[in-house]
Structure formats: C-alpha cells, structure tokens
C-alpha cells in the first residue's frame, strides 16, 4: 500500500515500537453500540480545572498528579477560562461525581472545577460514530 517492501515497513514499525513513538495499539469502540449489560455502562465527563500555579513548575506538577488517577483518561493544559481540561470516566454518574468532589477538588491548589457529562459521542479522535453514508449509486453506469 505504501509502495515500500514489506521488510522495510516491518522494520520501520519495529523501530517506532522500540523508541516509543508507537506506544501501543488500541481498539476504537463505540460504547453506545455495546449495550447488552447495563452494569457495564461507562460514564464520561469533561472536567475543567482551575489551578494556582507554583513557582518553577507552573502547572506541570499538578497535571502529572491528576493524570495519575486511573479515572482520568486525558489531561490537557488549555487556554481560556480554566487551566486543565480532563476527561474522566466512571461506572456511574455518582462515581464520577464522587471522584470530582472527594479526590479532585480537594487537592491543594485546585481552585475550581466545572464538570460536563457526555450525553452522546458523535466523533472521537477522528473516528465518527454516526452511521456511514449510504451508497446511492446505480449498480451499473457508463
């Protein structure tokens, strides 16, 4: 597909795996399509966090600290009204709320949080979760 020999492509991938440029391989799952067991449901929330910066490290130490929680799926330093934008998942809305109120907002230098629960995912990381577009072509055309 790339026009390169198979051996060359394998070698390039192996090199990137060794160097950590390729971290790991993941499945892209549409969780709304996996609905058999209601107890397996996952709740996702975007949480904006306002922090007090510290001399020498800015926000980096706090970002690293928050990222250590398993509940936290992503952490970005962002411009705008808040400092960090995090993605947090939990089994239930209650579990996510507890995480925010008990763990996140109680950390020193966390000044405020704003939680936005995800209601439906349409697109994530470039993958669309809406139905594919129909092929409207006639079966045989000139």
């Amino acid at each position, binding site marked *: 597909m790339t026009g390169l020999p198979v051996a060359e492509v394998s070698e390039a991938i192996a090199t990137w795996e060794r160097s950590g440029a390729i971290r790991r391989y993941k499945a892209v799952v549409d969780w709304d399509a996996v609905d058999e067991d209601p107890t397996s449901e996952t709740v996702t929330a975007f949480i904006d966090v306002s922090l007090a910066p510290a001399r020498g490290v800015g926000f980096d130490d706090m970002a690293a600290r928050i990222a250590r929680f398993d509940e936290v799926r992503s952490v970005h330093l962002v411009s705008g009204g808040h400092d960090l934008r995090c993605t947090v998942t939990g089994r239930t809305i209650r579990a996510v709320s507890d995480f925010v109120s008990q763990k996140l907002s109680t950390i020193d230098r966390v000044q405020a949080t704003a939680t936005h629960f995800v209601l439906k995912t349409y697109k994530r990381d470039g993958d669309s979760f809406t139905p594919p577009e129909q092929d409207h072509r006639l079966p*045989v055309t000139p």
Partner: protein
Amino acid sequence: MKELNGVIAACPPSGIRRFFDIAAEMDDVISLGVGEPDFVTPWHVREAGIYALEHGYTTYTSNAGLPRLRELICADLASRYGATYEPDGECLVTTGVSEGLDLTLRVLLNPGDEVIVPEPCYVAYAPCVAFAGGIPVSVPTRWEDGFAVDADVVAAAIGPRTKAILIGSPANPTGAVQPRAALEALVRLAEQHDLYLVSDEIYSRLTYSSGHTCLGTLPGARERTVLLGGFSKAHAMTGWRVGWICAPAPVAELCVRVHQYTMLCAPHVSQLAAVEALSGPDDAVQVMIADYDRRRRVFVKGLREIGLDCPEPEGAFYAFPSIRSSGLDSETFAEQLLRTERVAVVPGSVFGPSGEGHVRCSYATALPLLEEALRRIDRFLRRSAGPR
C-alpha cells in the same frame, strides 16, 4: 405518425443498460460496473452547496458561468499543467463534460463531417458525434500497446471530410493514459490535415504513475484543441453536473451561443460548490486519489494472481483485464459472472470492437468488496475452466 429522427432512432441503446437491469433485480451483487466514485462529495464542498441554497442562490448565472469559477478553473489549469486560457472568452462552465462534449461537436461539425474516435472509448462519444450531424469513424487501439493511439492507424482513417479527432485520456474504460509521444504524434497529424482535437480530460487528476499531459499545452495544439474537464471524478461530484470547456475564443464563443439557447447555464448551486472545490482545501481529493491508487494496486495484482492478464491501468478508476483465457466472449463472461457469482462488470465490447476479450472493472469500490469480488471471479474462472 411521421417518422422520428432517423439518426437517433438508428442509435442503439447503451449496452450497459442491460446489465443494469439484471443487476438491479439481484441481491448481494458486488458491482464493479459503476462509472463514478464511491466517495461522497467532500463535506466542505457539500456545505458550500447547502450555504448557497440557504442564502437563495437559486437563480440563473451568466451564460458562460460564474466569473469566479472560470477564474479558478483557468488558474487551476495554469498551475497544474501550464495551460493558459482566458477566463473571459476562452472558458465556459457546462452541465458536466457530457454537455461540454455535445456543445463542442455541434460547434465543430457540419453535416457529414467525420470525427475520428479511437476505441475502446466512452460509450457516448460516437452517439454524440452522430447526434451533432457528424459521422464517427472508429479506429482501433491494441491492449498489447497499452491502448496507446497509433498515429499511423489514425492517419489511414483521415479523409477529405475528417474534421476532428476525439480522445479521452486517462480513459474510460481502459484506465489507459496516452503517452506524451502518442499525443504529440496526433497533434502533428492534426496540424498536417488541419483537424480539431477534442480532448476529454475529466480523469486528469486520477493518474497514478505517469502524470497527466494536458493536450492543450503541447506545441502546436492550443489553437486547434478543445479541452473538456469537470468536477465529477476527482471531486466526487457526479450528481452536481458541473464541467467546463476551455478552447480558443472562436470555438468557445460559439459553444456559449449554443449553451445560452439550450442550457442557459449550469446549476447555480453546483457552480458555487465547484468554486469551493477549487478554492478550498484539496486534502480530501488527495486522500481519494491515494485510496484509488491503493485499491488499483491490490485489485490489479489480484486479477493477475487469478490468471487474468491485465494491462497496467495508469489512470481513472478502471481495470480492463483480458478474459480471453476463459474462452468466453466478453458479453457472455459478464452475464454469466453476474448470474452465477453476482459480480457486475461491463463487457469490453460495449466500448468498441477493440474492447472485445476484456471486461471493465471499476475499482471505485471499498477494498474488502474488491477482495471478495476477486474471490468470486476466481471461483467463476475455475468452474468455467473445469469439465464442460
């Protein structure tokens, strides 16, 4: 009742239609018979069309088409191929290349003028010549030559009534790209015999290894060349119906004259979408081209592996394998393949006598479907090669 138009009545219906009718009644058909992209028009272009409708751009435009669109078309030709055409006077927006071809032939031909049409070629070429009062004169090309047009064969067909040569490159149905030398030889012939050249370059951006030679840029060609192009293939905009003619002013002017009395203008909304196609990001087009190339390589390799000799298709999105090893003619091959394995291909014979012994397979189809089609064709070949 009095007789209807004899020329039109004498023109047989397209051989493709019969296969459409059979395929339309079957389930689970993998169609390699589709002459259009399987991609939907890129979103930013569709969005421009929606915007145009929302804001009421539902009127006629000037006959020649939106000035902005003509500027973009000429600028694109200049930057891509070095072709120089004036947006005002040498460029006309048409309702697809189909209208462009019709206008061109009506403007070039007087009754009884002959047009040389190398075949196998797009199914509409010869009928359009006839509808314009001309006489199509087919000349063969050979798959052993990669369907390159042989100037000697063309020269032998030139007579006192010959007016033009009509050629499509990259070509439907063969996927062949005419080598520069073959086109240069045609230009020399045209100069010697004072012929027009009509160049259908609708697939110009879909070339994979050789690049595209724009006929209008060859030495001596510009003054006698009518260039036809459009948005249907590279921008996946078949249903919008937008194309263009670029030609020397005397030809372009008369094309506008026919267009203003027959079509008035290409659809306004489609023209605005085409403006976005040329002025917006080109990424989606490049992704589509790369995808066609990937499928092309997988599919052609697959055809060869199951024993079908396939000339390398260097453009468009068609493979034109030889099915002579099956012992069947192309019509029988295509019909039996459709009925027994539910794979629709188009018999090469519908594109001219030189297409006999081939079938046209469009690889504008998702890769997994192409792979399944190859498995089915393989099964079909094994069965027909078995005891009979």
